[in-house]
């Protein structure tokens, strides 16, 4: 009963507060500290009723810091020092607690717990505080804070809040906040079995709306129940589409990684006819370059990541040239031996990283502009890091296309791919083309590693996990054709993700492998085989 009373009181006061807030709209929202101190001092009284009034006064004050104060009070962290200052306890473990001044926010260092006195609250005040905190931000001038606050209200509305929220909806200027608040009220109404609520929730994808609607579907009123069921069916339909889009997005994301991993392999395989089993380890080097750059530039993960793009390319390209000059050139015309030798190199590189750096995974920080996600609607949000990697893959692909189609190097590479002997007799220095191609292919592997470091753990086994998949992409797409690699990579990624929810991740992978084994029965040279004389094997 007392709780009800205090909540009623709160509502009345909040109503008053809206008017107050409007009156103060033009004025500064940060009244001087003397007034704030007065508000806080009203809390330090013995009577709980008086404290309740003080809380209301704080709400009415429209001070920006009000929410923090109330939260601290709720957590029992709002305390008073011997000399009468109000502080917030930052960490209440141990004997000495670090504190911060609640007025200035300035950190005051550690204080003995004996010198602090807690502002006590009881259960009634606790309830009052929770409701107050839920709505206090809705009065904030910051749209951002109003949005988060409205979001938090979904499913948390009770009878007392409804009139307040209705008033707020009328005054609200931001569409998103208004939409959320309407939804919050509608969820309450639908759960109470009111038709208006069910109608308002039709088409809403938020999980809380669905909970409310399924409750309404069990309502005693058959009209409401039918409407709710119909709304639910519509929502399910929408969700299915959104899930499909999400799968497609994840598939394209996985596919972009496969394309990045496979495209360098496709170039070297196409030109030199050798399989570089150490390709995965070159990716690993790229990923470790990102990690190393972040160690060199602490606190600036974004800058480090950008620097890593050329750095990763160079590191992997140099390693690739070393492999080509050191081993592969001695194995001309012996592709199977090259495969074995490069496999040996991959073992050495892996073990080298294990010994020199660590056998454990390293964490690469995702810069702020890549973390978080793009919210399309309540059921579909696209993670930003995957989107960036997808874009990056397309840029790399376009760049390689340009090099292949528009530069002298590209021309020579294509000539050697099609017919090495003929190209040589036309004066192309095949050895030089080999080196350049290998550097290019390895450098792209390094770029793939930089991109991968944003999606998975960076560890010595990073390359191994992708090498077989990237071979499959090359085999599937056909050698010597970049478009083939792109189409094959993206479609394998999507196929994998589409299968996954049905049969599980492992079985999906097996099905894809078996599919490729069967596929090359029909088309032994891949999706886009080379035509003409180059095709004879």
């Amino acid at each position, binding site marked *: 009963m007392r709780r009800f009373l205090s909540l009623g009181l709160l509502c009345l006061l909040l109503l008053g507060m809206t008017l107050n807030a409007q009156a103060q709209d033009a004025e500064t929202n940060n009244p001087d500290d003397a007034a704030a101190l007065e508000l806080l001092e009203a809390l330090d009284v013995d009577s709980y009723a008086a404290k309740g009034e003080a809380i209301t006064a704080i709400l009415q004050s429209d001070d920006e810091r009000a929410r923090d104060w109330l939260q601290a009070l709720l957590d029992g962290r709002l305390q008073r020092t011997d000399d009468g200052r109000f502080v917030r306890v930052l960490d209440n473990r141990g004997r000495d607690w670090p504190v911060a001044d609640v007025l200035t926010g300035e950190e005051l260092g550690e204080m003995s717990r004996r010198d602090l006195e807690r502002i006590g609250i009881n259960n009634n005040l606790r309830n009052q505080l929770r409701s107050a905190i839920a709505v206090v931000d809705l009065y904030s001038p910051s749209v951002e804070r109003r949005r988060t606050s409205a979001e938090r209200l979904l499913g948390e509305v009770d009878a007392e809040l409804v009139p307040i929220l209705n008033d707020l909806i009328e005054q609200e200027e931001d569409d998103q906040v208004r939409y959320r608040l309407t939804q919050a009220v509608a969820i309450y109404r639908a759960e109470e079995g009111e038709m208006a609520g069910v109608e308002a929730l039709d088409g809403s994808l938020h999980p809380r709306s669905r909970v409310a609607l399924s409750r309404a579907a069990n309502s005693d009123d058959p009209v409401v129940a039918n409407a709710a069921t119909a709304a639910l069916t519509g929502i399910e339909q929408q969700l299915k589409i959104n899930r499909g889009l999400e799968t497609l997005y994840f598939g394209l994301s996985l596919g972009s990684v496969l394309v990045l991993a496979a495209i360098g392999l496709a170039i070297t395989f196409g030109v030199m006819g050798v399989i570089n089993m150490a390709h995965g380890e070159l990716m690993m080097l790229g990923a470790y370059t990102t990690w190393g750059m972040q160690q060199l530039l602490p606190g600036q993960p974004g800058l480090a990541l950008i620097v890593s793009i050329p750095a990763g390319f160079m590191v992997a390209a140099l390693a690739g040239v070393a492999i080509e000059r050191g081993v592969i050139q*001695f194995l001309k015309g012996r592709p199977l031996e090259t495969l074995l030798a490069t496999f040996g190199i991959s073992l050495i590189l892996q073990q080298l990283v294990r010994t020199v750096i660590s056998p454990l995974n390293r964490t690469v920080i995702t810069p702020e502009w890549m973390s978080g996600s793009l919210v399309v609607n309540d059921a579909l949000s696209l993670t930003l890091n995957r989107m960036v990697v997808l874009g990056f893959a397309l840029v790399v692909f376009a760049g390689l296309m340009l090099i292949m189609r528009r530069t002298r190097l590209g021309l020579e590479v294509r000539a050697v791919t099609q017919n090495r002997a003929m190209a040589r007799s036309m004066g192309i220095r095949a050895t030089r083309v080999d080196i350049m191609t290998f550097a290019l292919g390895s450098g792209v592997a390094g770029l793939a590693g930089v991109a991968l470091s944003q999606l998975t753990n960076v560890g010595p086994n990073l390359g191994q996990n992708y090498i077989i998949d990237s071979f499959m992409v090359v085999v599937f797409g056909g050698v010597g054709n970049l478009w083939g690699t792109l189409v094959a990579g993206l479609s394998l990624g999507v196929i994998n993700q589409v299968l996954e929810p049905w049969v599980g991740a492992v079985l999906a992978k097996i099905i894809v492998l078996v599919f490729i084994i069967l596929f090359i029965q029909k088309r032994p040279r891949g999706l886009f085989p080379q035509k003409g004389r180059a095709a004879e094997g």
Partner: protein
Amino acid sequence: MSLTTESSTNFWLTRPFSERSTQIFLGVLVAALALVTILHVAVPAGNPLHIGAYTVNLFGKYLSYALLAVAVDLVWGYLGILSLGHGAFFAIGGYAMGMYLMRQIGDRGTYGDPVLPDFMVFLNWDSLPWFWHGFDMAWFAFAMVLLAPGLLALVFGFLAFRSRVTGVYLSIITQALTFALMLAFFRNEMGFGGNNGLTDFREILGFDLRTDATRLGLFLATGVALALGFILCRAIVTSKLGRVSVATRDAEARTRFLGYRVERFQLFVFVVSAMLAGLAGALYVPQVGIINPSEFSPIFSIEIVLWVALGGRATLYGAVIGAILVNYAKTLFTGIMPDAWLFALGGLFVFVTVFLPKGVAGLLLHLKRKKRGDDDSTPTDKIQEASV
């Protein structure tokens, strides 16, 4: 080593016995088996020359690896197919043997179920999956040791050779095959014990697996299997069929134009090789006491190829030398400094391919000829040179 035609009128299986290299190989193998047996049984345990049961077991393991290497050399050396998936056939043979050994445990398992192996009881299964039936009978299980890998090789090889998938493509596809099987066998739902595989074996054909006598018996059986497998492979490669294989290896298109159905020869040799690999796996499992999906890992399969490359491709006895050398080195390294093993293995891959293209066997031949002052290259050599 010679491809002489004088003895071609003999029965094809006995032909290898007239070859010098086979005689030497069999002589050394029999002598080694006899020596180990004598040193194990007749020399008392305190004597420094005594070979303990552990070492006998280790040698048995090496011999099963050697048989596997012979199987790989048959396809790589004489058919030109670099299979990076022979570990799959080895593991399937091993699993067939493992299933037999699991059924032999009977009700002596931890859960005491008379029919179901422990891991199935653990997974709350009510009955045996269909493919586990029959494995309580030794003859059926031993037949499956050969038939299961053979069937897989038949289906896979039929699809691959028919559409003329060769060279690097075939290598990658075989690797994908063993990778897919590894993923599949890691799943508990497959019914092969998942991650842990099959283990905790008790007895084989009524003999307790933990006694020294059984271990010696398994070692000798592996030695005999290696000898028989070697003779079979030699017989195949010296037969007319073997010569068509070598022709396929060296010039596939030309052989086809001469009127040979190349894919049939390839398929036959591939299936025989897979069965030998399965046999090697079946002999391996009771000696190490466990079979799990890690035998399917692509790294293991590619390691087998290294044994063959190190020993010397297209010699068969070289494969045996390579398998024993590498695995002995592995035992030494992993005991003394485990971190260095991958460096050594990786370095070996590079070293052998770049500096020892004909392996240890090639080196031996080279030294022998130099001593005699002969011309270093024979017609056979030239064929091999053209192929590598």
